[in-house]
């Protein structure tokens, strides 16, 4: 009898072990299942970590400011008015416009100059090409703080260059787009040069030769043939530059006095909702959401649009 009980317990244990073992067995025979499971786990993790800040912004924006202390994870109330108030309290639209304007202008300058540089680095052989390319890449890793002071002096007209009898005072660019676009362009150019060099190098020489024989100059061939054919690369460089400028904090914050009419970008707009005695956290959250929207639209919709659009445009010419 005791023996019987023992065997039944044993078989029970075997069954328990069997469940786990069977699962292991199955997983080993069919690893696809485990990979699938892991894929969802990892995806969920990234989704949550990336989307939670946006959710949190929304929660804050919808909660009336007086109830915002000791917030939980759910909004307290549904105060959509914040999205209107941000435009009433400050010319927030102008801040957004400034940011987009600066980003677009910088992108245009960067694409133009980086195209020329990309052509040279990607398609011409010359001594010192490799070191020069490395130097340019190194520039992109310079800390912006390192040249803030000299640039600030330069852009506020405090640098005087003696030229024989006359002395030239540096132009006052502070509070103008120039004070931001110049450092933006130089900081974000290297990445674009790198991307475009890679793309332009892949266009067959024959096409450029054909364009030149047909009647373009080298630069004409670059803009009529090489650039359209590198549309995905140009779009990538453009979008990355646009986003980088749009997100930039350092020079955006320091190269103007924070007034919308003085080309201050979104960062000043958002910070404008904190006064000496009141902090409108809900408005700052709402403004952040509005500020993010252009980039979200650009990335979600326009990225594909721009790539296919550029290619289609090139196809029709």
């Amino acid at each position: 009898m005791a023996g019987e009980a023992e065997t039944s317990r044993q078989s029970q244990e075997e069954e328990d072990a069997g469940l786990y073992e069977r699962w292991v067995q199955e997983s080993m025979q069919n690893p696809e299942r485990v990979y699938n499971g892991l894929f969802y786990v990892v995806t969920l993790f990234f989704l949550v970590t990336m989307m939670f800040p946006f959710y949190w912004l929304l929660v804050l924006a919808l909660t009336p400011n007086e109830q915002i202390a000791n917030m939980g994870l759910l909004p307290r109330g549904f105060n959509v008015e914040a999205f209107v108030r941000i435009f009433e309290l400050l010319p927030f639209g102008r801040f957004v416009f400034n940011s987009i304007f600066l980003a677009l202008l910088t992108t245009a300058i960067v694409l133009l100059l980086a195209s020329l540089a990309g052509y040279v680095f990607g398609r011409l052989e010359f001594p010192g090409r490799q070191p020069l390319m490395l130097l340019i890449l190194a520039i992109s890793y310079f800390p912006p703080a390192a040249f803030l002071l000299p640039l600030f002096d330069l852009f506020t007209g405090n640098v005087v260059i003696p030229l024989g009898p006359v002395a030239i005072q540096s132009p006052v660019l502070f509070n103008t787009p120039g004070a931001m676009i110049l450092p933006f362009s130089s900081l974000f150019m290297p990445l674009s040069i790198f991307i475009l060099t890679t793309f332009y190098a892949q266009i067959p020489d024959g096409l450029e030769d054909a364009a030149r024989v047909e009647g373009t100059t080298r630069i004409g061939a670059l803009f009529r043939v090489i650039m359209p054919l590198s549309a995905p690369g140009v779009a990538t460089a453009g979008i990355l530059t646009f986003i980088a400028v749009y997100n930039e904090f350092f020079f955006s914050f320091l190269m103007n006095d924070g007034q919308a009419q003085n080309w201050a970008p979104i960062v000043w707009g958002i910070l404008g909702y904190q006064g000496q005695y009141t902090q409108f956290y809900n408005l700052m959250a709402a403004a952040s959401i509005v500020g993010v929207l252009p980039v979200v639209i650009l990335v979600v919709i326009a990225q594909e649009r721009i790539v296919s659009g550029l290619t289609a445009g090139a196809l029709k010419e």
Partner: protein
Amino acid sequence: MGDVKLEHVTKRYADVTAVDDMNLDIRDGEFVTLVGPSGCGKSTTLETIAGLTIPTEGTITIADREVTNLPPKDRGIAMVFQNIALFPHMDVYDNISFGLRLRDFDKEEIERRVERATEILQIQGMLDRMPEEMSGGQRQRVAIGRAIVREPEVFLMDEPLANLDAKLRVHMRTELQRLHKELDTTIIYVTHDQAEAMTMSDRIAVLNEGQLQQIAAPLTCYNEPANRFVAGFIGSPSMNFLEGELTADGITTDDFAVEFDVAALDGYGPGDDVTLGVRPEDVHLEENADELAHPTTPFPAQNDVIEPMGDEIFVYLIVHDLEGGGQEGAVTERDPDEQVLMSVDPDADVEMDARVQIVFDRSRLHLFDTRTGDAITHGLVQPASGVDQRAQGAESEGDD
């Protein structure tokens, strides 16, 4: 006036001289082919004419205008490329009209010219297609169309048929000739394929190692090659070369002798090392020698490999050291390339390993200086005294 003149054109790169002192004088309306093995400088030469490469030295004149340092667009040329080089992002119409639009032609003129080009090239109805939707032959026609509409002084073609399959290549060859007849414009054509060069050109310029070897009509290059390189390059299969030495009354190789009037040679005499060149179709079996006006003395050979081609049979002959049947080792003394290739009628009775007697067509033999490779004479003159050829033959056999 589409004449092109190259004077002392040299292109040096860091470690190689791609083109070495090239002089060419191409007349208006002429179809000239630059031909040579890869790396001979033919493409570089064409690029200097196109302006895609600036020569290190020398001058280039197109239509009586010096263009050496002008950019390609200002030279009055159009070019067709080996890789076809249609702009993949433009449809056929835009590809063909690209150059005209750059030059601000008005719309009607552009349309008129494009229409004419599509008619000539038979690509009507394809104007809105993209290059990737077309076959290789169609693409090449579009590329030629792009060149035609410009109505240039000179067409440059850099192996335009190289990327097409064999059948299409032969077809396009005839089309290009027709096109040349129709347009009557100078065409400078680059190819490594001597058959293309032979069939299409008014004149062939044979290049090797950056140097011009010979420029002459195709048949002149074939029948009177300026040197051993041209002789070997033009004609397929290639000419046989047999090294020997001049004697008082002919040339002697290790295996046979051909007697001729050595005194008629200018600057060469007994003791000089010479190379005898003979094309496969000028090697005959002895039994067919009666058809020849001037056969040489027969000598023995052995069939090695036989290649029936359908319209003819190629027979690789061993001529050296036949006597030593079992002592094959002795053969290695000589270059194994020194087989003789013979082309015979398809109905000829040839058997593997059979012993045969062969003769050359004396009037179609070539003599080259072994050292310099320069041609000495084409067609060997019968010796003045009518020696009994049979006896002489036996004697030369005995010499072995």
